[in-house]
């Protein structure tokens, strides 16, 4: 796709997303606003995973950890009466970055299947930690005491919250676009493409990978803060390993190493899930083969369908 066509496609996509609240209210279908808002939150999480999985080649099978850390940061503060959104979200981002720093510092020393297993193991530890803390509802979770409060922005207004999520998504995609094309982005992509050569030209990939891992964790923590406000309910299920798997599917289905890919992946996966679960309760029997086929035949994901020549 030429830069011009890409700009048109992005503009159209943005317009479509922006049109959802008025159209949903026109047809009196608030459910769709809710669905698309949820999809966009997962798109943010998937975009953060894409940074390390698609561009950095780090197959993190524990990315849901940061959804959980971000969610708990907001939920726990609200539980103790701190509802200032700026404080809550700053903690969500900061705590996720810190957790990513610890997990990354250990796991990035490994590679391949060991990396996958270590990231999964860390996330399972956090998951069971969430289950074991009775103060915050254990495995039942707890209601979010109150939504995050921002001056002039009321998250209880469904449309306002929707547009906030859309704004965050656009911001994350834009920053991601800058990042992957910067010197930093070139280095993490180079290390993915050929580590031996990267070391031979004088770059130790470790600290760049770790930095990318921390950035991805922080952004996903923000998605967690959005998600807990969206569900108004906090549960360890945020960190379930199947959640990590879903995020990976969104990235792979949408197209690894394409900035817009994870958004397409999130839409495709969650809309399919919604449609299929409306037809049959055994919807996963249909979804599974579809995913297999897409991996087999669209190696570059949905984004690759639009962008043949790269």
């Amino acid at each position, binding site marked *: 796709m030429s830069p011009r066509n890409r700009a048109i496609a992005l503009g159209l996509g943005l317009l479509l997303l922006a049109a959802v609240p008025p159209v949903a209210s026109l047809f009196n279908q608030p459910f769709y606003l809710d669905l698309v808002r949820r999809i966009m939150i997962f798109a943010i999480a998937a975009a953060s995973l894409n940074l390390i999985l698609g561009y950095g080649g780090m197959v993190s099978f524990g990315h849901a950890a940061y959804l959980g850390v971000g969610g708990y940061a907001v939920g726990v503060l609200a539980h103790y009466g701190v509802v200032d959104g700026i404080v809550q979200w700053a903690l969500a981002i900061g705590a996720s970055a810190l957790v990513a720093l610890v997990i990354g510092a250990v796991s990035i020393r490994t590679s391949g299947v060991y990396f996958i297993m270590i990231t999964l193991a860390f996330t399972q530890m956090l998951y069971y930690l969430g289950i074991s803390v009775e103060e915050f509802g254990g495995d039942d979770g707890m209601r979010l005491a109150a939504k995050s409060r921002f001056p002039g922005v009321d998250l209880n207004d469904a449309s306002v919250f929707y547009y906030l999520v859309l704004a965050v998504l656009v911001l994350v995609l834009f920053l991601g676009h800058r990042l992957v*094309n*910067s010197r930093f982005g*070139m280095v993490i992509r180079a290390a993915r493409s050929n580590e*031996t*050569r990267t070391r031979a*030209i*004088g770059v130790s990939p470790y600290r760049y990978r770790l930095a990318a891992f921390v950035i991805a964790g922080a952004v996903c923590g923000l998605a967690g803060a959005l998600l807990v406000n969206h569900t108004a309910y906090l549960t360890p299920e945020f960190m379930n390993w199947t959640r990590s798997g879903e995020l990976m599917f969104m990235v792979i289905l949408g197209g690894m190493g394409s900035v817009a890919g994870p958004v397409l992946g999130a839409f495709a996966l969650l809309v399919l899930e919604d449609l299929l679960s409306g037809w049959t309760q055994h919807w996963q029997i249909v979804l599974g083969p579809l995913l297999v086929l897409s991996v087999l035949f669209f190696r570059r994901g949905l984004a690759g369908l639009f962008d043949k020549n790269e």
Partner: protein
Amino acid sequence: MSSLLEVRGLKKSFGALRASDGIDLEVREGETHAIIGPNGAGKTTLIGQLAGELRSDRGEVRFAGENITALPAPARSRKGLARSFQITSIYPDFSTLENVMLAVQAHAGHSFRFWSPAREEAALCAPAQAILEELGLGARAGVRAANLAHGEQRRLEIAMALAVRPRLMLLDEPVAGMGAEETQRMIAFLSTLKGGKTIILVEHDMDAVFSLADRVSVLVYGRIIATGSPQEIRANPEVRRAYLGEEEPA
């Protein structure tokens, strides 16, 4: 001439196989020093040990007077030791220019720069393009490296090694798999580097060795059995027996 690289008693075993079995080597500033030897003599292992990719079991490597034995590959590269690979090792999904730009970038300070597009930085593009021109790849700058012909990829290998402005280049079979004409062109190019750069050349192609090398070391079973001028090496009976065999070198 003073020596730029000094190797003392370098050893490396893989299980029972002694790939490097006490290698002593001295490379003088500005010389082109060829290392020849039969298949399996341990030439690529030695290059790996010099580049820092393989940790030596024993011995010492001194570069410009400094003991670099414990330094990993990236640190050695930053000190001015660049290598090319016997089996082409490039970034296939990046453009030819980007391949070289990455090497330039690696030696232009840290890469914790998150905002400006690297492709648009003249400080990276201009030197990279200049090196591509030198190697006759200027017109191929925008092509994906995976789509280059074999000979072009071999030249890109050299371009990436040059882009880090090395004091010492370790060239591992630079003309491997090249046709006769391309081999001649590569030899001509490498001879333009002679004198300006110190080069360790591992090569099977005897034309390349005898037309480029100031000195030649012969590696057999992990040991250097002789070092000398190309004429001395050709005349050395031990070398002829161990390596050159019955066949007269060209």
